[in-house]
């Protein structure tokens, strides 16, 4: 029996053969079976990944829509009360322990006010077939009444919690980058053309100030896609982060191993995409031959 299992897991072969075999299969997308569920690791990952993507994109949307304008505002009003409060709030957000911040929000919004659900992606009363894996899209497709609003409700708190640190980073980065750009000669040229302040800041300055901000957003996005371990655990969000933590707890080595490998590839891919985006926004890179 023991020999049979050893043979099944390939443990009877020498170590170098085991490793070569693992690499050989990994290249073809076969990362082995999970010890716990006996399902292929890649399949588990792909089932859970949409949940993480959904959460990450919503968190990033939250972080960018608030962080970018806040940073611009602080830069334009530098040295004033606006600037100081934006910086104070973003520093607080940046230094906040995520698990504590998540719990605080749950206690306040879910328990005291009762306006948001405590955890999960959807209430038990709905059953949605996973067509795309993205709950927001699936609930819309299912035509089940109230399901979309329910999914959105579930998403709000985790997205806020996960987006807090990126928000702070983006706000600070935008501010400092903007302050630098506002001193540039071409901003003075834009003003000398008689353009409105909105156009000077929103078009001429922002386009240049965005270059380092995009880099930061990309780096943050990569980390978040790798699984927001704390956030997903607190909100029982069925994503990559929580799956990795559970796999570690269960000593599910193939899952941990394969999961880490996939997460690493995701980060590399995102960074590559950011580099491509960099070329689109910055003509000086695009035209270098």
């Amino acid at each position, binding site marked *: 029996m023991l020999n049979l299992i050893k043979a099944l897991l390939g443990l009877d072969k020498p170590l170098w053969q085991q490793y070569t075999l693992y690499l050989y299969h990994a290249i073809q997308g076969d990362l082995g079976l999970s010890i716990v569920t006996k399902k292929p690791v890649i399949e588990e990952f792909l089932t859970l990944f949409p949940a993480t993507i959904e959460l990450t994109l919503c968190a990033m949307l939250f972080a960018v829509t608030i962080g970018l304008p806040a940073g611009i505002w602080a830069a334009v009003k530098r040295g004033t009360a606006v600037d100081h409060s934006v910086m104070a709030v973003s520093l607080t957000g940046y230094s906040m322990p995520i698990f504590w911040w998540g719990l605080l929000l749950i206690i306040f919004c879910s328990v005291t006010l009762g306006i948001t659900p405590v955890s999960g992606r959807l209430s038990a009363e709905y059953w949605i077939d996973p067509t795309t894996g993205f709950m927001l899209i699936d609930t819309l497709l299912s035509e089940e009444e109230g399901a979309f609003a329910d999914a959105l409700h579930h998403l709000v708190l985790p997205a806020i919690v996960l987006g807090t640190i990126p928000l702070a980073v983006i706000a600070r980065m935008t501010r400092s980058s903007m302050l630098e750009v506002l001193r540039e000669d071409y901003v003075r040229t834009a003003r*000398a053309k008689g353009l409105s302040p909105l156009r000077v800041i929103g078009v001429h300055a922002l386009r240049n100030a965005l270059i380092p901000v995009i880099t930061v957003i990309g780096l943050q996005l990569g980390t978040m896609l790798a699984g927001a371990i704390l956030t997903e655990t607190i909100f029982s969000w069925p994503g990559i982060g929580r799956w990795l933590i559970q796999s570690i707890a269960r000593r599910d080595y193939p899952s941990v191993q394969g999961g880490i490998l996939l997460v690493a590839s995701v980060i590399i891919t995102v960074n590559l995409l950011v580099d491509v985006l960099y070329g689109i926004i910055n003509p000086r890179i695009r035209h270098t031959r």
Partner: protein
Amino acid sequence: MALLEMENLTVEFGSEKNPFRAVDQVSLTIDKGEVVGIVGESGSGKSVSSLALMGLVSYPGRVNASRLNFDGNDLLAMPQSQRRKITGSDIAMIFQEPMTSLNPCFTVGYQISEALKVHVGGSRQERRDRAADLLQQVGIPDPLKRLSAFPHQLSGGMSQRVMIAMAIACNPKLLIADEPTTALDVTIQAQIMDVLLRLQQDRGMALILITHDLAVVSEAAHRVQVMYAGQVVETGKVPDIFTAPRHPYTQALLEALPERSRGKRRLTTIPGVVPGVYDRPKGCLLAPRCRYADATCRTVRPQVSDLAGAKIRCFHPLDDAGRPTP
């Protein structure tokens, strides 16, 4: 009526209680089609006063003037949105650093047609044609192709030509050129000055030429204003101001021209530097560096006075032979 009437323009920075005057009661009148040179050392307030004229001095700078009329309109009384319609169309400006004055993220064509879009209007195609036409006027070869170039693909001289094209896009009545050739090398300097002066004559626009280069001023300008430490020390006609300067500072500037030191062992200089924020002298601002300064100069600040068609800020204006009068 003069095109520009500016009286006692003052620009202050720093706190209300302890302000630093970068520009101190500068007055300037310019007629249509007139070329006025403004000369002075670095830090004499040349650039700041023209930025104030453009409405580009922003917080914490404070601009005041007893009169600032352009083409019959009071620039200080009108709301910002109204003033922006004049800035960039009727008054335009080109800057010292052409390489950094163009936005690196947008094409040359976009940046030129943007000025047209805001002030003139017209369809995209019309603006594009006009932009190409403007590039042609400032002497850029193959203008249609250049429209899609980014600033980093242009040389300094090319960038300055683009800046000029952008500034004249809306047919300004007054063009301010703030040291347009300082950052360029000598052969290009002459070309850019040629372009500027040709456009000035063709269009009959007034030109304020801010420069260190007295030679350029002597050739191109009708009138010269000499500034020192934020104040106008002498205003006079060309060539009078070059043949018989009335102010000791003007005299010293002319003597510092390298050509005038020919045959000498050392170049003539003006000793010392322009006084900074904290070391403004009590009397005449030039007194510590002036070879003719006496006790009155060191304790009392002189006011501007008329003297044979020129305006001088000095107790002892020089006579025709260049000697101080008592």
